[in-house]
């Protein structure tokens, strides 16, 4: 979240905004002192928390002043980050936000760490080595930005906030029918990229999919060979057509796609899976196919089906079941919603 001297804001810290007002208040002091600071905030007021009306827990927020002048090192590091992003690289911005004992650099110091961007950093070599060793795996993992406390050889520790910049997942959507249209809209809202693949130019058109990042028309199985399937490419089959489902499933099940879902009834799904089984696809691979596709939301319109599919994709990408938070205890703490 950015707060300007005149009080304008851009972005937010929390989704509910309960903390943001206090951040804006603190920002004025940070700007006048020109010193970065980590502040801890309890969520909700004491009385409301006591009777359960406010979210429990606390949140640590790092506030720092940023000068508009280009010479400011923070501007410089964000310029580098922007360049990396433009090149399509994943990376992390490592910021020292605290620790114990002598710190390897001043609080607020930053370094860009990635697979291709070297640690051109103000940190001491020891911390650079640790980051180069450990951060690339974090960039690839499902976990988001986080603070990690690293132990240094002299017995001191340093708290590093790792802000992960990872290319958004790309939904590979095979079939440009009615369900695909709201799917692309929902995906765009969620910040996901989309590729629509279909044999028909009439269905897979820019008019029908103005928000799709790519529209590919041709022989779907042939197009699939030119696409990159990986841990950030959920595969959604909504063609509802065995001639597309069969070859695409064969392809997708040999890849690391985190989600493979196919539209259709249980009966149809069983038949398709049996045909794949007959072709030698293993039970372990077949178990990855989610069919009928989507969570059980009960809707039947194209938009409702699309929502149930997107909900299942999001749940799978986050390693969750997709069940109601109210029916489980997992959402009690640590999630601001």
């Amino acid at each position, binding site marked *: 979240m950015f707060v300007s001297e005149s009080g304008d804001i851009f972005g937010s810290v929390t989704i509910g905004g309960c903390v943001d007002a206090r951040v804006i208040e603190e920002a004025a002091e940070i700007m006048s002192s020109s010193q970065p600071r980590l502040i801890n905030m309890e969520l909700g007021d004491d009385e409301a928390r006591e009777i359960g009306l406010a979210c429990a827990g606390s949140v640590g927020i790092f506030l720092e002043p940023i000068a508009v002048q280009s010479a400011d090192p923070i501007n410089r590091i964000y310029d580098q980050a922007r360049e990396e992003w433009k090149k399509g690289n994943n990376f992390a911005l490592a910021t020292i936000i605290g620790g114990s004992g002598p710190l390897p650099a001043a609080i607020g110091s930053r370094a860009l760490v990635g697979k291709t961007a070297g640690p051109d950093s103000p940190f001491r070599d020891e911390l650079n080595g640790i980051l180069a060793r450990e951060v690339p795996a974090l960039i690839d993992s499902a976990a988001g930005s986080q603070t990690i406390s690293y132990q240094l050889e002299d017995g001191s520790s340093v708290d590093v906030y790792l802000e992960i910049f990872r290319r958004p997942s790309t939904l590979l959507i095979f079939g440009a029918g009615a369900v695909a249209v709201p799917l692309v809209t929902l995906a765009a809202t969620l910040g996901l990229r989309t590729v629509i693949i*279909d*044999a*028909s130019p*009439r269905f897979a058109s820019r008019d029908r999919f103005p928000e799709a990042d790519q529209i590919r028309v041709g*022989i779907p199985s*042939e197009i699939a060979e030119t696409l990159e399937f990986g841990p950030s490419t959920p595969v959604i089959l909504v063609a509802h*057509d*065995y*001639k597309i489902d069969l070859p695409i499933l064969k392809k997708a099940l040999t890849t690391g796609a985190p989600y493979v879902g196919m539209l259709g009834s249980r009966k149809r799904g069983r038949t398709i899976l049996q045909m794949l089984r007959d072709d030698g696809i293993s039970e372990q691979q077949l178990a990855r196919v989610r069919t009928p596709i989507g969570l059980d939301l009960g809707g039947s319109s194209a938009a409702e089906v699309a929502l149930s599919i997107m909900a299942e994709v999001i749940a799978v990408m986050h390693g969750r079941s997709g069940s109601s938070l109210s029916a489980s205890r997992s959402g009690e703490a640590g999630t601001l919603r």
Partner: protein
Amino acid sequence: MNPYGDRILDHFRHPRNYGSLDEAQIRTEEFNPLCGDRVRIELAVAPDGTVNAARFQGDLCIIAKAAGSILTELVTGQTLNEVESLRDSKILDQLKIEIRPARLKCALLALVAMRNGIKAHRAEA
């Protein structure tokens, strides 16, 4: 019960000449907008007009895929003149079941693609 018949299912499950050629004098695609079948036909043609090799490729329904397989077997070794004179009934007979009117386009998609490809090839020559 198998409504397609053994011959169609055999060619669907084990299509002959499925894939592409490194070098083809004729390469053409045909699309059936009703069912979404899209087929690509490739022919390697000798200077004397003989089809030395034929390939087809596409995400096709059972009938269209079987028909593509049977057709490519049929035309290999024939001259372009002979291929052009192939009647629809020749392919339909080879499928060994009665093709309902609604599925005729599927059964003849590869043949139509091949005819169009030969026509374009002759126009270019």
